[in-house]
Every structure is written in C-alpha cells, then in structure tokens.
C-alpha cells in the first residue's frame, strides 16, 4: 500500500515538474524546477533500492550540473532575449510526433515480457551494501568502460576550457 502511494506521488509530481521545466519563460525558473526534479529522481531511486545512485544523482545533477547552469545563465544576462516567441513555429508537428512516439512506447510497454532473473536480489545487495556490489562489478568486469568514462570527463574538461576561453587579442 505505502509503496504504491509513494509511487503515485512521484508519478504525478514528476511529469508536472517536467512540464514546468519545459514551459517556463525564465531559464532560472526552469533550472530551479529541474533541481526539484532531480530531488524527486533521487527519491525514486531510493524507492528502487539504488542508494548509491540516489546520492550520486544529488551530488552530480543538483550539486554540479545545475549549479553550472545557473552560473552560465547568470553570466549570459539574457534579459532582452526573454522577449519574443517561447516556442518555434513547428511546435504542433513536434507535439504530434512526440505523442505518436509515446503511444508507440505505451504499446510496447503493455506487451513487455520480463527476462530471466539475475543474482543480485535485494537481500544479496543489502548483505553487501549497494556501493560495494556496484564497485565489485564496476572494477572487474566493466573496468574498460570505466576508464573510457574518465577519459570522456577529461575531454570534457579540456574542451570546455578551450571553447570558453576568452580570446586575448594580442
């Protein structure tokens, strides 16, 4: 009973927050709504027994990415841009496409059949803590994607620095 109520809460607020993110005029407001959304996602992860991911979600999204957003939005000082159209002229087409895809996805979800079960039951994870279970798998079987991910982060750092650097006209 209780899990379902909690789920229903999430199922109602998260789409509303998402719609707010999409439809608000001021980008700062949108970022704020996104922040709330991240909190709710973290909550959802907790419901799904993914504690590590909930924590990472908060640290990463709420703590880093969205703050970065806020900084840049502030830096841009785009007050004058707020006048003008909110959406592109082709929004009916986009909405229609989106709804069609949603219908298709619902269609697929309704016929979804679950595959074979794996070894990591909730009890097994609880015995080992989520983090340790994740780490065990990450650093043995998925070590290569891990290294690649760190490489991606390196590139992102270097790229961001190169792109955003102010050109000094000597």
């Amino acid at each position, binding site marked *: 009973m209780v899990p379902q109520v909690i789920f229903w809460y999430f199922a109602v607020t998260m789409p509303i927050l998402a719609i707010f993110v999409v439809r608000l005029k001021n980008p700062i407001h949108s970022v704020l709504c996104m922040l709330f959304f991240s909190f709710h996602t973290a909550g959802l992860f907790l419901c799904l027994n993914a504690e590590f991911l909930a924590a990472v979600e908060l640290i990463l999204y709420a703590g880093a990415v969205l703050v970065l957003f806020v900084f840049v939005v502030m830096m841009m000082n785009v007050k004058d841009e707020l006048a003008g159209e909110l959406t*592109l002229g082709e929004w009916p087409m986009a909405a229609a*496409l*989106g709804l069609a895809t949603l219908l298709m996805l619902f269609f697929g979800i309704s*016929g979804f059949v679950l595959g074979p079960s794996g070894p990591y039951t909730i009890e097994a994870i609880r015995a080992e803590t989520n983090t340790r279970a994740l780490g065990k798998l990450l650093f043995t079987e998925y070590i290569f994607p891990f290294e690649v991910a760190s490489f991606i982060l390196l590139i992102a750092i270097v790229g961001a620095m190169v792109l955003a650097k102010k050109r000094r006209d000597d």
Partner: protein
Amino acid sequence: MKEAILIPFMPLLAFLINIIFGRFLFRHKAHVIAIAGVAISFILSVFVFIQVAQGKTLNYDLYQWITSGGFTVSVGFLIDPLTAIMLIVVTSVSLLVHIYSSGYMHGDPGYYRFFSYLSLFTFSMLMLVTGNNLLQLYFGWEAVGLCSYFLIGFWYQKQSAADAGKKAFIVNRFGDFGFAIGVFMVFLSIGSIQYADIFANVGGLQGKTVHLLGFDVDLITLIALLLFCGAVGKSAQLPLHVWLPDAMEGPTPVSALIHAATMVTAGVFMVARFNPLFSLSPTAMVVVALVGATTSLFAATIALVQNDIKRIIAYSTCSQLGYMFLACGVGAYGAGIFHLYTHAFFKALLFLGAGSVMHAMSGELDIQKMGGLRKHMPVTFWTFFIASLSIAGVPGLAGFFSKDEILWLAYNGGIVGKIVWVMGTIVAGLTAFYSFRIIFLTFFGTFRGTHEQEHHLHESPGSMTVPLAVLAFGAVAAGWVGIPQALGGSNWIAHFFEPVFEHPHVHGSHAEEYMVMAVSVFVAASGIIVSWVFYVLKPEIPRQLGEKFKEVYTTLWNKYYVDELYDATIVRPTKWLASTILVGFTDAKMIEGIVNGVPSLIDKMGRSIRKVQSGYLQHYAMVLVLGLFALISFVFIVTPK
C-alpha cells in the same frame, strides 16, 4: 596480264604523295608526281590493250574485302575488251589533261591540291572500270562523284562554284539512290554481286515478277531501270541533267576530263557492262533509247542560244551522251562505246580549246564578246576547228564513223529505232549548227571585246597547245578503227567487242546504209552552211529570228525553266521542311526540350529538396525523432507476439 592491277594504284600513289607532302615539298612542282603516275598507268593500259586485242582476258580477285554470312565481296579486276578500251580513254585523256593543267593552273594557290584531286579522280575512275563486282563499281561511282564535287568547287571561295559542287553531288545522289536499290535487288535475286555470277544466272530470272504497289512488275525490267537511274544521274540525262551546265564553274581542265571524257561516261559504261541484263528487258531498252534521244534533242536545242562558251560545250556533251544511250537502247552497245571513245577525244579537245581561248581573253566566257581570234591563236583555232568538224560528223573524221554507226544501227532497230533515228538525225544537224556557231562567233569576224582584253590576246604556252595537238590527231584518227564494211573497212572495233557485246543483227542492205550516211552528211553540211550564213554573212538574221520568236527564244535561253521547276517543287519544300519542321520543331522543341528540360527539372528538384537542409537544429532533431518513431513502430509491428 596481272600487271594490269597496277593501273589504278599508280594514280592513287600520286594522290597520296601529293596530298600529304604537297604542301611542304611540291608546292609548285606537284604536277611532276601526278603526271608520272598517270603516264605509267597509260603505258600499262596500252600494253594491256595490245594483249586484249590478242584475245587474253583477266578476272582476278586481289583480296577478300567483305565476308558477312552469305555475302562475300572481293576487290577484283576484270580486264576484257570493254575495260581495255575504257582504260585507254581514261588514261590518255587524263594524261593530256594533267599536262595541260600544268600550264593552265600555273600560279594558282591550290596547285598541289588540284593535282592530288586529279590523281584521286583518275584512280576512282580506273577502279570503276576495272572492277569485277557491283560493289567496286559503286565505290568507283561514288568516288568519282566525290572528286567531281572537290574539283567543281575547287575555287571554293567563289559562292557559285561551291553551290555548283553541291548541286552536282546532290543531283547525283538522286540517281545513286535508285542505283543502290538496283544493286540490292540484284543481290536479292541472284545472291551475288560478282559480274561473272550475275551474267551466268541472269537468264534464270526471266519472267519473274515483283509485286510492287499493286502491280506485278517484271523483275529484270525493274532491276535494269533502277540501275539506269544511276546512269541518268551520273551521265546528266533528263531529268537529272541540271548539274552539268553548272559544273562548268570548275576549272576548264576539270570540265575536259570529268565532264566530257570520263565521269559522265561512267553511266554509258555501266549500261554497256550490264548488256546481258538490259538485253533481256525490251521495256528497259526502249526507256533507255527514248531517254537518250530526248535528252539529245533537248540539250541540243538549248545549246543553240547559249552565250557562255563552256556551257554550250556542256550541253553538247549532254546531247552526245544521249546519243550513246540511244545506241545502247537499240542494242548497239558496241557502237555506243565506240562513240564514247571518239567523243572523249573531240570533246576534251573542245573544252581544252575553250580553256585556251578563256586564257587568252583573261577569263571572258561570253562568245558574243569575242571575235576574230584566229589571227592571234592559230593552233587553238585549227584544233578547235578539227574538233568541231569531228563532232559535226564530217566524213573522214572520227565523229563521222561513230555517229554513223549509231544512226545506222538505230535505223535497223524496229519502230522505236526509226523514231530515235529521226531524232538523232535532227540532233546531228543541230550539233553541227551550234558547234560552228561557236567557231564563227569566236574565231571569225571582228573583235567585240574590250581594249584591255585585245591587248592581252596571245597564243597559249606549249604545255597547253601540245595536248591540243595530240587530241586533234585523236579526233581525226581515232575513228579509223571502226570504218564500216560498206566503205571498205573491216569494222575492226565491232569484232574487238564481240566477246562482250552481241553484235546486233543488221537487216538492211548496203544501199540503205549509204542512204543513211548520205542523210546524216547532208544534215551536217546544211547545219554548217546555215551557221555560216547566220553568223558570218548576215549577222542580223539571228537577231531578227530572236525578235520574231521571242517566247521560243526565251524558253530556250532559260533552259526550258527546268532549274526553276526543280527549285519550286523540290528545293524549296525541302528547305521549308528542314527549317520549319526539323529545325523548328524537332531540334528546337523536342531535342532542346529534353536537353534543356532534364537539367532544369533536376535544378527544380534540387531547389526544393535543398529546403530540407534548413540549418535549424530542431528540424534535424525532428527528423531524428521521426526515424525513432519509425523504428519503434517497425519493431512492434513486425515482431510476432
């Protein structure tokens, strides 16, 4: 005898050397190579003639040209009496014309080009006469037409010369079309185009008919008439005679060689060569005889009133060719070829003499503007006079014997023969008249030209007068090989031709032969006397006659308006067709439509498809989402539950 094969190839070699190297090496000495080539051919031809007179013949295939299924053709040579005499005619006249041209064309910028074309022409004509199959004949036929085009339009900067060249070639083409269909029919009915096969099998075709446009036409007659079409075109008979007078735009040696002695006689040669075929079709023979006789009369009447010296001689050629066809039409092929042989000499002489006169008169052509030239150019005058006597048929000279042979055999040729005999005799009178008209107006009387021309009057150089003299000798003596038995001769030439032609049966007696001879001599003499009266004694008579019969005079002067008729019925509609339909519609609308339309269509398509690349990021993203949607739908629809 095999060395006869070299005969056509010597001029070919001369042509190649002259055309390739002439520009650099032989600018003004091109005549040496050309004359050498033709001289060798001439010597070989004499040699061959002697051997043929002893009875030898040659039918030799040099190499196989085309092998295609059931159709094989070789480059082959047939030397028999007919060929031998043609070889003599062609090489001797060609050699004399070459020598004459070295004087006449002296200083012309296209000197080496002229000699290369002359050599090419000689080669083509020799291939035509020595061939042993229809394809080689056709090759030679077309090649001489081509050389005629080159040589008539030799001074191509002159518009009239270029036009005349085109006219000759195109009018010839009309005839050659019929000729080609004739060749096709020969192949279809007999299965081979070698003369030997044709003549062996032609008897088997008698009585076969072809269903054509609802009528049953006799096969042999059809083939013969189609082949005759080509002869009509090539030998300038009615109705395809229109190119010959205009062909006088070319240099005079060209007129002498091509349009007097050799190319135009190719038609007669062809009819004579195919005499087994023609003899089997009485209808075709009648057609040939009537066309020949009508052309003869037609051309002679036009020649009466022309003033351009070369044109008169051109119409005279047309008329004499009519005589030759007349002879072939009544079955006297030997007589026709005999006349061809004598005619080559005196006609070439007339043309070269005219060239000499023009040379002296600084290019003047109008005989009304000449006069009294015999004091200034004696050699030209005497040779011209001899030629005119010969053509008029004065007894003792070459023309008399050949013309008389024809008239006598025509008289013996049944009803049609008698009709054409009457026409031929009238033509003989007219011929004498207009030939001497030239002489009296040009060489007698007082000079009617300008003072400047009078100052320049001189006899021509040796290179021109020597050939005149040689030809004059030919004009006199060439006929002596055919002195008929009635006059005590042996008619050697008729016997010479026996292997090739059947000698026509002669029913008349010697008395009738004398009568015919007397009639023709009388007619010739009266023609000369009347001409003398008109142009020397009482010059006002021609003018008065012209005034009295003004319409007749105008019609004759305008050549019976045939050119105008052709222009209105054929030339203008063709031009209209070409410009309105073919250029206006097919070319401008259809082809241009496609050629311009396809690119413009591609352009329009490109322009509209280009709009997909709008540059907006979200448009691209929408396409991405569309793809995603398609993929998901595809997966969910296709996979079985």
